[in-house]
């Protein structure tokens, strides 16, 4: 009940925990952050011990007392070890690659054992989506956990709360702790598949021109790249020379592709427009064209390449976001 209260009420949680999530850097699970309660199996064990104790009293079994008390002592030691399995674990978040909305983010967490003994069977669970997995951390080792978290909408996706839990070594106790490392993943708008807008000559005059590969006019042959479409492979030339060759087309001479917010019908919602623009950026990058992005208040001059694509998509992802 208290657990639920804490989960639902962040301010109360802050008061209880004494820190304010999300936390920067490495989070060390100090002992006041690790909670421990008996599991159902633990209660069953206690009931077994009670029966053993009553039997020992009834039959005056000295060794029965010995066994019962040894098991009780073992239970206490097990409780301490369960707490120890999480204690002082250092949790830090790794980089998460940007994804498109609707895809799944791969959040990376690093669990640094920092101790000379191993920490087996630690459950890492994302509280928001329920993604979870169990890892063993070797002695002085670092465990890497990849949590697949769905990214429903564009913008920054924060990791959110993660629970670490263990029942090692006896399963009689459950120790757990919550962490919320400051980790976020950029989520691009969901790319809409649609045809690219026609290249405009608007920016041609005076601008630097470079022959950019397009797919309109045949311009020659070049070596095959794994990413080339089979439609562009020069099969005749391949049959003749035996080498894989790709037909190269020159883009529309002097044309640059402007992906412009203003070009889209005003009747479309913001999100739809962003989706379409994102789709265009992806297609343009794939097509190899020089493309620029124009958003209200921002402009990315025509270029191409991974960095350019990322910058454009980031601008779309964070468009009018706080």
């Amino acid at each position, binding site marked *: 009940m208290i657990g639920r209260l804490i989960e639902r009420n962040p301010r109360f949680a802050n008061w209880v925990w004494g820190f304010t999530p999300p936390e920067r850097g490495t989070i060390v699970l100090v002992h006041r952050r690790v909670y421990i309660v008996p599991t159902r199996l633990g209660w069953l064990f206690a009931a077994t011990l009670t029966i053993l104790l009553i039997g020992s009293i009834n039959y005056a079994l000295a*060794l029965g*007392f010995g*066994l019962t008390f*040894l098991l009780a002592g*073992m239970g206490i030691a097990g409780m301490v070890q369960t707490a120890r399995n999480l204690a002082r674990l250092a949790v830090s978040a790794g980089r998460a690659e940007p994804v498109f909305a609707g895809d799944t983010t791969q959040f990376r967490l690093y669990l640094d054992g920092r101790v*000379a003994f191993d920490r087996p069977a630690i*459950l890492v669970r994302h509280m928001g989506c*329920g993604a979870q997995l169990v890892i063993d951390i070797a002695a002085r080792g670092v465990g890497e956990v990849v949590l697949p978290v769905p990214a429903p909408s564009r913008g920054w996706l924060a990791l959110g709360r993660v629970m670490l839990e263990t029942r090692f070594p006896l399963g009689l106790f459950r120790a757990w702790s919550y962490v919320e490392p400051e980790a976020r993943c950029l989520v691009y708008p969901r790319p809409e598949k649609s045809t690219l807008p026609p290249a405009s000559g608007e920016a041609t005059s005076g601008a630097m021109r470079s022959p950019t590969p397009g797919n309109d006019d045949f311009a020659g042959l070049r070596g095959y790249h794994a990413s080339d479409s089979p439609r562009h492979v020069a099969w005749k030339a391949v049959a003749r020379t035996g080498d894989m060759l790709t037909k190269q087309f020159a883009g529309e001479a002097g044309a640059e592709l402007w992906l412009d917010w203003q070009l889209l019908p005003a009747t479309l919602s913001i999100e739809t427009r962003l989706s379409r623009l994102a789709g265009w950026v992806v297609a343009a990058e794939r097509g190899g064209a020089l493309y620029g992005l124009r958003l209200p208040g921002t402009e990315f001059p025509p270029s191409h390449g991974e960095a350019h694509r990322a910058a454009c998509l980031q601008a779309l992802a964070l468009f009018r976001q706080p």
Partner: protein
Amino acid sequence: MKPLPHPLAPELRAVSARDLVWLIGSLVLVIAPHALRAPWWLTLLTLCLYGWRLHFTLQRAPLPSRWLVLGVAAVAMLALWVEFRTLFGRQPGILLLVVFSGLKLLETRTHRDAAVAAFLAYFLVITNFLYTQSILTALLMAVSLLATTATLVGFAAPQREPRANLRTAGVLLAQGVPAALVLFLLFPRVQGPLWGLPQDAYAGMTGLSESMSPGTLSSLAQYDAIAFRAEFEGEAPLHALRYWRGPVLWDFDGRTWTIGPDLRGAPTPPREGRASYRYAVVLEPHNRSWLFALETAASVPERARMTFDGQLLATTPVRTRLRYELTSVIGPEPPRTEVRGALARAMRIPPTSNPRAQALAAQWQTGAASDEEIVGRAIEFLRAGRYTYTLEPPLLGLHTVDEFLFDTRAGFCEHFASAFTFLMRAAGIPSRVVTGYQGGDLNPYDRIVTVRQWDAHAWSEVFLAGRGWVRVDPTAAAMPRRVESGLARAVPESASLPLMMQPRMEWLRGVRYRWEAVAHKWNVWVLGYNPERQRDLMQFVGIRDADWRALTAVLFSILGVITLGLLAWSLRRLARPDPVQRAWRNFCRKLAQRGVERAPHEGPRDYAARAARSVPDARRTILRIGELYIGLRYGAQQSAPLIARLQRLVRTLRVT
């Protein structure tokens, strides 16, 4: 979003073949001692059930239906009922549990079921203690405890190496020992039983009984089970003087001597004698009330009384190992008077039984001047009669005394005692049979006298005017070596003599003496720890009149300390950074107190240089610390002397 199943929840984790092998291995260890007592088919059935379960996992077959399992359970219960004619006794109940361990496995799918089976294994361990609590049992059970615990650890960490799990289990048990010790010593002990025990709870205890007929003692003498142990303060009396008094038999029906109804009236224990001995007896449970005392007891232990014929009786039957302290006097001044009615009873014989013996006694009676003379003649008669002392006496018919005295001439001590007492009564002298033990083995290593069932003995007492009851041992008269050095030297060597008593087993006896000295300590200090000892212990540490509240309070305080200690110990190992880092931190703290705080971006070299400028008095030390730290932290190797030097420098650094 719907929460996914919890991967650590035992009810959702399927049992793997490895888990199962560990579980079955632990169970086999646990039921091994039970197999010694169980009918063979039951052990076989249980092992088959284990094997069957393993087969299902190895073949990846679905488990048998519940009905099949219930059917096997019903068949096993029926077979047990046929064997024991009941299911509610101790033995059938435990055997049922043994079978159930196999049946439980057959419906074990998840770790939760498997953990319940492991708990059942713990339970089976304790049932084994109902039969034996020897050191060997304790060791075997410790092994099975370790295996079972390692099994449980394996359930919690399925990916881990079994050897690591075994080590964890060992560490857990070892860490449990301090708490277990405290609980053992301080947990408020209640004298059981809490409720009625099954009929057969005390079955199988051997010992003397309320009656004696030909063959009773000679069959008891085949057992090497320990009757009791006695620890003397100072020297133990000689073998021939060690008569341990047990039940006194008054009534004779021509064949069997019985204890008869209890006559009230307690004699005052005699105080003077030739020698007095103080000793403690640790009596094995025999399910009867009588306590054994060296003749003649001069004190009465707690919760016991002395009957008018000198028996010590406990207030309740002795069902657990009992320790009591006593003083005895040898050759005492006995009371000269006797309870009214007792002497008449001590002369009663069936008038028509054993006519030849009666005639012989009558003949002695007419020719003798005093009772002493009759006793002397009887002893002389037995000594001259060339009687054979044997563990295998011939069977006797109707007139047991006549047949023994005049025909078979071979018997065990009960024959001699019975015949002599009968002769005395026939000659008009009040007499009675005393059963008990004679002698006992003095262990040269711990000076403890161990009395076994084969030391069972019977002798007579005659009432002589002016002297009271006097012990006469007719066996000693016919076979003096019996009381001087024990049974083994008195009977001809034969197969019927228990192995350990055969003279050629001398070296083995040496081993046994040592072992028994250890076992005695175990009995007294571990198994014999009871409410009284607990009270003594509490008094010893200064808590007087410890009731359960005081005990519980002390107990929980100590348990709390132990838990915190364990916690601190495990966290300390976690928290401690390497010594170099620790020394550096102390160094920074010292300087920070002086006002030279290290900025987060500041490296050790810059910081040390700045600190040296700020604290010119300690300039050299500070720079040296900085150098050492950089060398140890970022250098190629760590050397213990350098670390020690760094620590010393930091410790002695004065910056104020």
